[in-house]
């Protein structure tokens, strides 16, 4: 049946992506559940461990992601107005900021790993179990979030290509819109990760 053009239905595409985001809510929800339980049991240790996080880098990264969300939202408005060149520019900026986020994240991780703080490390296992859990959660949650950022960057890069080749137009922009929704979701996850790991000192 080939491409099944007959079923092209933007509303269905929108339902599809939102349903997918619902599953993502539950996926990250499992992690937030563990976080809340472990923090409830080890409030003091979480307090101490969070002091080791770099608040400046975390804040910059938050601003970076918020701004990237602004760009991709505007890119969709640009496409709807038929301004594909502006849309490409805005998506490019989004990808750039996503990359900046990952680079900063990399330095944050490396700085800790160099100090010997990573899961199952001898240094870490000497700390209290609350701190072990904190850093375990830190690596797992920011790691899986980072993976989502990486996937987002990849998908948006494809969208830039589609916008440039005229696959995405003011009449047919469902792909880009759905990508935007995914990117905003990833942003929201970070909005919660930021206070939970950087601000509970």
């Amino acid at each position, binding site marked *: *049946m080939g491409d099944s053009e007959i*079923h092209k239905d933007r509303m269905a595409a929108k339902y*599809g992506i939102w349903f997918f985001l619902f599953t993502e809510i539950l996926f990250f*929800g499992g992690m937030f559940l563990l976080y809340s*339980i472990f923090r409830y049991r080890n409030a003091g240790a979480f307090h101490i461990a969070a002091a080791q996080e770099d608040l400046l880098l975390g804040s910059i990264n938050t601003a970076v992601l918020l701004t990237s969300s602004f760009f991709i939202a505007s890119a969709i408005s640009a496409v709807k107005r038929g301004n594909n060149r502006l849309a490409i520019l805005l998506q490019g900026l989004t990808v750039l900021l996503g990359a900046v986020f990952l680079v900063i994240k990399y330095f944050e991780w490396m700085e800790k790993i160099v100090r010997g703080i990573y899961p199952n490390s001898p240094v870490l296992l000497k700390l209290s179990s609350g701190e072990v*859990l904190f850093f375990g959660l830190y690596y797992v949650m920011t790691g899986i979030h980072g993976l989502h950022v990486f996937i987002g960057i990849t998908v948006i890069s494809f969208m830039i290509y589609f916008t440039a080749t005229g696959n995405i137009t003011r009449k047919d922009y469902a792909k880009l819109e759905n990508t935007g929704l995914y990117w905003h979701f990833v942003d929201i996850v970070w909005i919660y990760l930021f206070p939970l790991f950087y601000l509970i000192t």
Partner: protein
Amino acid sequence: MEDNASREPYYVNRGKYRGILSWLMSTDHKRIGIQYLIALLTFFWIGVLLGLLIRLSLIMPGKILSQGTYNQVFSVHGIIMIFLFIIPGIPVAFGNFFLPIMIGARDVAFPRLNRFAWWLYLTGAALVALSLFVSGGAPDTGWTFYAPYSIRTQANITMAVSGVFVLGFSSILTGLNFVTTIHRLRAPGMTWFRLPMFVWTVYATGWVQMLATPVLAITLVFIILGRVFGVGFFDPSKGGDPILYEHLFWTYSHPAVYIMVLPAMGVISEVIPVFARKTIFGYKAVAFSAVGIASVGYFVWGHHMFTSGMSDTARIIFSFITFLVAVPSGIKIFNWVATLYKGSIVLDSPLIFALSFIFLFSIGGLTGLIIGALAPNLHLHGTYFIVGHFHYVMFGGAGFAILAALHYWFPKMTGKMYNERPAKIGWLILFVGFNLLYFSMFVLGYEGMPRRYFDYPPEYYTGHLISTIGSWILATGLIIIFTNLIRSAFKGQEAPMNPWGGRGLEWTIPSPPPEENFEEIPVIDKAPYRMDG
């Protein structure tokens, strides 16, 4: 596009691919459904063979399987039967084939996503299969992968768990696809309360797949991270808590019970009105009870953990909510019986399987009440009583519904009729074997025989022997049933368009259906199951 759509059966080759590729690359929901069905039944038979091996080993412990191998065999039996057969089960095979037809659509909402989910299923299955043979050995944790053992064992859990993760992703995408399809692609006039009951249950199941499976996914990720990187969320020596694993696991795996059983109930609701020649009793009650089961099903997982060391408060809360599930389940049973009442019953094999579903599922459900109550659970938890209970629900429930669906929709899917006599003989043998096999487990469990044990004191021998003999009888019945079906698929008589006198849309198109199902999208102007014409 619609003009040149061929009216030949869906399995006649068109398009650029040939041979097996013409199936693997197809986005036709019917081809995908048939492929799923073949894969599912293959895994079912592997699971059956492993089950027979377990039973055989139990009447002569140590003679056939060593202790370690026994652990692996029952684990792999569980993993295959649960994750590869019965969870995908009815939705991916019969849902794919019939859901679009029943709502008057040409395909699902996202045909290519559907094909992708099928590939994911194959990938997940391959990973699980591979984990049996690569270094470390087959999983020996049971299908539940309980931590901390699953994090410490030498067996190759990482790969098996990755496989289950991929299968879960496939399941999410299937659920997402079906829910969107039901929202967007219903034919004109197909209002929510004109939907066939099977569609309602697949809809409710789709939501459970979307909102529960991610919790399993993240739990499995924790297991993998625990094994590969030593992250110790479930490891007490690192401040973790193994009971949290059980919470997260059952947060998915209890709703998963409804992923298995809800569509089964849908099948039964399709079969009974047709063979009772009566419209379904209490349409809205049956429809809403499906949604009710799906929603309450999220909040009862704790009853799998009464003996885990969970708090008393939680045990009481979970035990209480568990009883609530019995209400919508009871509504369904009563409505089916009421549908049969004063009907002109035609006792063909689909109905026979459906009736056995009601009988066996009721036993499974009622024993579920016994172990859902906190006090008796403490006595029965971790015994063969549990094993008997969930085999009555899973095999007696979902399994018999699959057999009912196979017989009911066989003429539509293959265009051939099966032989009625061997089907009935096979059913009789299966039914007798089933009850011998699993009812003796209730007795064994009540007497205190723990599940998953390799050996036992001599007083349990008689029970185990009866159970094992039952397993042979059950297998004989299955062989007769499936030989009959396979033979008929090739040599059966041509099936008419509507062999049973059903009123659903699937009976208004040729058997087997052509590509894109409908020449013209039908317009629906009346409720389903209207037998008066």
